[in-house]
């Protein structure tokens, strides 16, 4: 039987077992929305398309399955660009379907026309313009395949309205064959052999673990490898949760706001094993001074990540899970007692700390308490800034896919829609969005979405009346000239705002009110907004200022 392009699109999404589509309709995508109407597929109507792309991203990070968003042409498509760029930087599988004007008028500056393929080229893993309806099923199949294999990433399908009306026979392809795309999974045996030798020789080894470990689903393999060898583990912000942070081998996060002991360990190491991490500048500090005594093994599925910023001694291209398994079989418990004793000493001497005195609410305290009350097992999303770094420092993540944050692009406004997406993907789990007053106000319109669909996410807004991280940099490096970073007088009462949308809103101004408010939030079965009025001029420490080596750490007095 012949189907229209719109029907083929929806059927193909069903074939891919899509659970939810996040989006917002408009002119040229209407034929597809018409089919969607009684298709049985779950559709979440957002209030702004950026929200749709972040929700799809949050869904994907929480579940490991590609998130799907569907929007119209022109402004609908351009509004998803920040979401695509966020997903691209953090290697998140996503399929974004954008309407497009009819093929006959493309290029004529038609109403709501934008060159979506051109605009999104550099923020997607791949993109397609569907010119013929007979190509559509294959394109959808390929899009899901490309998005979720190799180094994952967002794929965009630009879908012209005339193609959505044209008809053809529908056959959903069973297999994908793309001659230019064949990701390597098993690492090269010789390289694995060599890495195992390097590991057995090491006296001061450190595992440096990034988001690739979580994307590969290799948290269990990593934990087994680390415990078998006794090698301490530090993670990037995207790697949080790949190794339990309460484990004695955990060094917590490294980098600009990492722990002293993680950074000292990396700097003092003689072998650094990078696992699905890409040597981001927030991790390395000054590149030329990074891990000066270390030989480096780099496990990554993306060959272009290897020796991009830091030359490595033993690259292994392939899937982290495969390679860690192969390595675990070739190693034994290392005799590195001196090294672990040194690390213990650093841990004792330089713990993470904050000033617990007084009645004022401190973000570190709030996050610490959220951790305790959720047994460190909630799914936590964040915006970007101080609250994000404190979440990374104080929550103590246990499980993969529990820290959902924009690490690479640093997208403020990501946290709240991502939390909605995550909750839809994992409805049985508690989902917290720990947000800043600045970040939250970038996408707070999605309160309407959360209330309408009764998505019980718990939003904790850390209102320090500033773009806190910007203010911190201005305090430290720009003579306290707070240019453009103060929000204070214009911030609304977020609890009342939440109430106006129909959510539960609670305002917290004193430390003693924090735990009761959190308990109330945990009991509530609808969306909750906790407005935490927090210390205004608190700084995130430890901090390695830009251009410094990782062991040149600033800390609170």
């Amino acid at each position: 039987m012949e189907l229209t392009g719109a029907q083929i699109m929806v059927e193909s999404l069903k074939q891919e077992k899509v659970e939810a589509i996040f989006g917002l309709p408009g002119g040229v995508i209407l034929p597809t929305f018409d089919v969607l109407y009684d298709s049985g597929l779950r559709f979440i109507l957002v209030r702004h398309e950026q929200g749709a792309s972040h929700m799809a991203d949050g869904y994907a990070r929480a579940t490991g399955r590609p998130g799907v968003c569907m929007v119209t042409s022109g402004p609908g498509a351009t509004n998803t660009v920040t979401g695509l760029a966020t997903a691209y930087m953090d290697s998140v599988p996503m399929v974004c379907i954008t309407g497009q004007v009819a093929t006959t008028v493309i290029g004529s500056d038609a109403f709501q026309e934008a060159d979506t393929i051109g605009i999104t080229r550099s923020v997607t893993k791949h993109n397609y313009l569907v010119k013929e309806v007979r190509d559509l099923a294959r394109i959808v199949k390929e899009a899901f395949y490309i998005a979720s294999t190799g180094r994952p990433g967002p794929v965009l399908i630009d879908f012209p309205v005339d193609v959505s009306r044209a008809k053809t026979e529908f056959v959903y392809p069973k297999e994908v064959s793309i001659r230019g795309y064949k990701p390597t999974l098993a690492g090269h045996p010789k390289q694995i052999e060599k890495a195992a030798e390097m590991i057995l020789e090491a006296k001061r080894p450190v595992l440096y673990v990034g988001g690739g470990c979580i994307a590969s689903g290799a948290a269990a393999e990593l934990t087994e490898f680390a415990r078998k060898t006794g090698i301490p583990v530090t993670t990037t912000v995207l790697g949080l949760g790949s190794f339990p942070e309460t484990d004695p081998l955990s060094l917590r996060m490294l980098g600009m706001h990492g722990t002293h002991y993680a950074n000292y360990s990396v700097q003092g190491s003689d072998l650094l094993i990078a696992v699905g991490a890409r040597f981001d500048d927030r991790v390395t500090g000054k590149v030329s001074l990074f891990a000066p005594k270390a030989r480096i093994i780099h496990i990554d599925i993306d060959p272009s990540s290897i020796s991009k910023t830091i030359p490595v001694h033993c690259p292994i291209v392939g899937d982290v899970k495969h390679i860690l398994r192969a390595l675990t079989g070739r190693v034994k418990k290392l005799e590195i007692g001196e090294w672990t004793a040194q690390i213990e000493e650093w841990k004792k001497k330089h713990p993470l700390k904050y000033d617990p005195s007084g009645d004022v609410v401190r973000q570190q305290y709030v996050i610490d308490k959220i951790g305790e009350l959720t047994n460190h097992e909630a799914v936590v999303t964040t915006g970007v800034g101080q609250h994000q770094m404190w979440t990374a420092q104080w929550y103590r993540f246990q499980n993969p896919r529990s820290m959902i944050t924009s690490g690479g692009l640093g997208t403020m406004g990501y946290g709240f829609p991502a939390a909605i997406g995550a909750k839809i993907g994992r409805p049985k789990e508690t989902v917290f969005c720990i947000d800043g007053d600045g970040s939250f106000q970038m996408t707070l319109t999605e309160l309407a979405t959360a209330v309408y669909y009764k998505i019980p996410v718990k939003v904790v807004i850390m209102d320090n009346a500033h773009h806190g991280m910007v203010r911190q940099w201005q305090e430290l490096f720009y003579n306290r000239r707070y240019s453009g970073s103060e929000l204070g007088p214009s911030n609304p009462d977020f609890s009342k705002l939440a109430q106006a949308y129909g959510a539960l809103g609670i305002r917290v101004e004193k430390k003693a009110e924090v735990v009761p408010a959190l308990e109330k939030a945990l009991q509530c079965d609808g969306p909750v907004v906790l407005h935490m009025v927090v210390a205004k001029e608190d700084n995130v420490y430890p901090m390695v200022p830009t251009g410094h080596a990782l062991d040149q750490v600033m800390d609170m007095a």
Partner: protein
Amino acid sequence: MKHTISVLVENHFGVLAHVAGLFSARGFNIDSLAVGETEDPTVSRMTIIAQGDDRTIEQITKQLNKLIDVIKVQDLTEEEKISRELVLIKAQTGAQNRSEVLQIVNTFRAKVVDVNPHSITVEVTGNEEKIDAILELLRPFGIKEVVRTGTIALSRKSELNLKGPKEAPEAKVEKPEKKITGKKK
């Protein structure tokens, strides 16, 4: 250093923009780029001439390999290869110096493709050095316009196998290793 990179790509709409976009987005410079269909009409070959140190070129080839529509990437710089460029040169000539210009044209085995009272247009094919040399010799007469195709190149070795995988990443892994141990010694 100048590198000659040969790239086999899907003969689709938008692929050129993807490749060119990769260069601009990563801040790589292209000296020239020539594209055309190959013996297989579903495949095009791009010959890209780009400047960069070994590390930049390594990144370029890796990034090119990452593009879904790229089938195969080969750095021909160190390879035995045939490379050619075609150039059209419109030189200023009058009755007095036309024969002098023609002499140069003959020496380079170039072809005259158009003559009028004030100028002569010649077609030259060759490698880059040859083309630079004839341009240098014609410059004193006054060059009105020049157009170059950019270099195209083929390896002298057997043809690139389309069916095989892209250049296997394993094939490259030994390279950085050697460099580093070299430095440390």
